[in-house]
């Protein structure tokens, strides 16, 4: 089917997604920001005063915001995509709506909401802070976007798995907690001793996190950590290509009534 139809369907699904997420009033939207905002604030306070785990070269608010937001882009996209098929089941009634569209719209909505959240949190902070800085804006965009693309690829896999093997629906959210601890949301890769550092660096999410921090402040060094845009780009690309390939193989099976 043509590209124009895909755009219309994704547009319609995004509308439906936003309507159910924000649910007609602002309480829904407050709920969306409250979660990440509370973690960012509590981590900033705890680690600044009690246990300076983060790197001195970067402001703690920026350190935790980037870590938590980038990780949340991944975790929210994945967890929501597990349910993408079931939640939109009624809408496959219209032949134009394909399972992949639900993943695209969910990934877009998560990315959009979290970018908005970041602007709401960091916008005022950067204005009032004594030395506001974003050293490399393109790098920041690239890091966040590539993390989101990687999450989308994983989301396609999770949607397929959630539809064909219902046990995954329980399993994926359970994996998110341990993943949180190894994805650099609350620590800096350069503080991790070898050989563990080397292993942790294989995780694309920690790459996205570290690249975002480095984009804010170039003093936050990535040297010797194995973090590179090249690696993140390749992982995202391979994940997406692979997931779309698998998707084309199983699309008919997904649509079939079971």
């Amino acid at each position: 089917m043509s590209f124009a139809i895909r755009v219309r369907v994704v547009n319609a699904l995004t509308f439906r997604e936003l309507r159910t997420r924000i649910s007609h009033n602002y309480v829904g939207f407050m709920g969306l920001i409250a979660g990440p905002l509370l973690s960012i604030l509590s981590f900033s306070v705890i680690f600044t005063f009690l246990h300076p785990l983060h790197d001195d070269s970067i402001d703690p608010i920026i350190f935790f915001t980037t870590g938590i937001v980038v990780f949340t882009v991944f975790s929210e996209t994945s967890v929501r995509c597990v349910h993408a098929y079931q939640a939109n089941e009624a809408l496959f009634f219209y032949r134009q709506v394909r399972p992949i569209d639900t993943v695209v719209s969910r990934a877009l909505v998560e990315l959009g909401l979290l970018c908005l959240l970041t602007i709401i949190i960091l916008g005022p902070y950067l204005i009032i802070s004594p030395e506001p800085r974003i050293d490399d804006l393109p790098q920041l965009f690239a890091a966040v976007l590539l993390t989101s693309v990687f999450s989308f690829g994983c989301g396609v896999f999770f949607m397929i798995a959630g539809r064909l093997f219902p046990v995954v629906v329980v399993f994926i959210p359970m994996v998110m907690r341990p993943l949180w601890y190894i994805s650099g949301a609350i620590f800096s890769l350069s503080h991790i001793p070898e050989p563990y550092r080397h292993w942790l660096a294989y995780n694309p999410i920690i790459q996205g996190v570290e690249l975002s921090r480095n984009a804010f402040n170039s003093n936050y060094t990535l040297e010797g950590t194995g973090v590179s845009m090249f690696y993140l780009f390749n992982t995202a690309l391979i994940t997406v290509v692979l997931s779309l390939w698998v998707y084309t193989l199983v699309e008919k099976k997904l649509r079939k009534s079971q």
Partner: protein
Amino acid sequence: MIQLHSITKSYVHKGVKNYIFRDLSLALPKGQSVALLGRNGAGKSTLINLIGGIDEPDHGSITSDCTVSWPVGLVGGFQGSLSARENARFVAMIYCDDEDEIVEKINFVQDFADIGMYFERPFKTYSSGMKARVTFGLSMAFDFQVYLIDEITSVGDEAFRMKCREHLMRKRMQSDFIMVDHNLLGLEADCDYALVLVDGRFYRYDDVLEGVEIHKRILVEPGFKEHFLAQQ
């Protein structure tokens, strides 16, 4: 023209494969409306869903060179947590390009359904009558070359039923119907031919009433089905 090329469709229940169609080929020509007849569970709705692209066959393919509706009459395709207005907008967004057209479709559905302030409330809170009103209104808001019409079970009161019939007759002027037998609206007499579905095979009757007669005899007369199949 809608064509089914050697379709096989089965459902697996408790490990047992149950075939609805085996290697079925069928052509539904343009410019003719068809009434599908057959006992419950024969596969009429399955066929409608396959043509509507909601379900996929195990093997084979379906091709069409015309715009085909979703199955009219079923209360599918609605997100329970969204209101009728939001559901209508969702569908309009899929089929229309500009905002004016979308608003026009939504207004049509609102007028047609005529359910007052319920139009703004979540779909899951509606009574079955209200659901039928919105569902039917949404189907009538768009123009398709072929309408798939599944059994319309509950369509509210007599006045609303009249309105539905009137709208369907108007659609019938420019579109073809592929419809599952239902006496409720008395529409099957308007079809050009009938397809009687027996054991996964279709038998065509150009005289719809003759098809209905055969269908009824298969249902009630013991031994007629075997006799009928032996004759074919």
